[in-house]
């Protein structure tokens, strides 16, 4: 009984480590994309847009793939889903950007940006789920 408890705590500990390691990678990845986009004429807004859409596509694929397999690593979702893609994509910056656009009185973009993000994000996630689910 004690052994089983020890085993379960060690697995949770390893899951946490997977989350943390993935989170570090994802956050650095997002800075990298923002850095590259920042050097072009594109608005930083579109860096957030790009990471959010790409992240949704990949997560959809990974989740569907994971669900379809009986022998899938218990660290896959904590590492890739919560860690890497959780940190790569961002909700807080997305909301703050919408708020800033509205505050600046830029109403067209303030309405178009969240609608486009959600529309494209949902479509990307759906595409990922369909790809990942197909045998």
């Amino acid at each position, binding site marked *: 009984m004690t052994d089983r408890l020890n085993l379960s705590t060690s697995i949770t500990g390893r899951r946490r480590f997977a*989350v943390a390691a993935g989170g570090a990678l994802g*956050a650095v990845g997002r800075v990298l994309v923002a850095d590259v986009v920042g050097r072009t004429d594109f608005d930083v807004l579109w860096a957030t847009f790009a990471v959010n859409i790409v992240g949704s596509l990949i997560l959809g694929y990974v*989740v569907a793939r994971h669900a379809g397999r009986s022998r899938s690593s218990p660290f896959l979702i904590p590492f890739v889903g919560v860690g890497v893609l*959780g*940190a790569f*994509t961002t909700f807080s910056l997305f*909301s703050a950007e919408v708020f800033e656009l509205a505050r600046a009185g830029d109403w067209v973009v303030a309405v178009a940006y969240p609608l486009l993000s*959600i529309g494209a994000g949902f479509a990307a996630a759906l595409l990922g*789920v369909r790809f990942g689910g197909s045998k």
Partner: protein
Amino acid sequence: MTWVVVGAFGALGALARYGVSGIAQLMWRTTFPVGTLVVNITGAFAAGLLLALVTGRDVPDLLVTAAGVGFLGGYSTFSTWMVESVLAAESGGRVGLRRAAENLVVPLVAGVGAVAIGFAIGQWI
């Protein structure tokens, strides 16, 4: 230097999210992905607060990047929000579609609202 700081704070943010969303999902036993909602709303609130606190103040860039890009970026998530919405839609029928629509609209409205409240409190401090 920036990368190391962002990576470290991203790891902390991801860990915090893992804990908070897990606890929230246990507290409210519902099919609605409340864990993701809780981290995203609290993350948006914190982003608004941070935005107000750094505006017009001489705060080191690295600190803002660590907190805003690293921690809050790792803490909040867009991809899980989208995939959970897709899974809700795929759960079947009109109920599934309604759940998906709810899960897209509620966090969006609540998120921007949370930024505004955080910002107002930050200005007031």
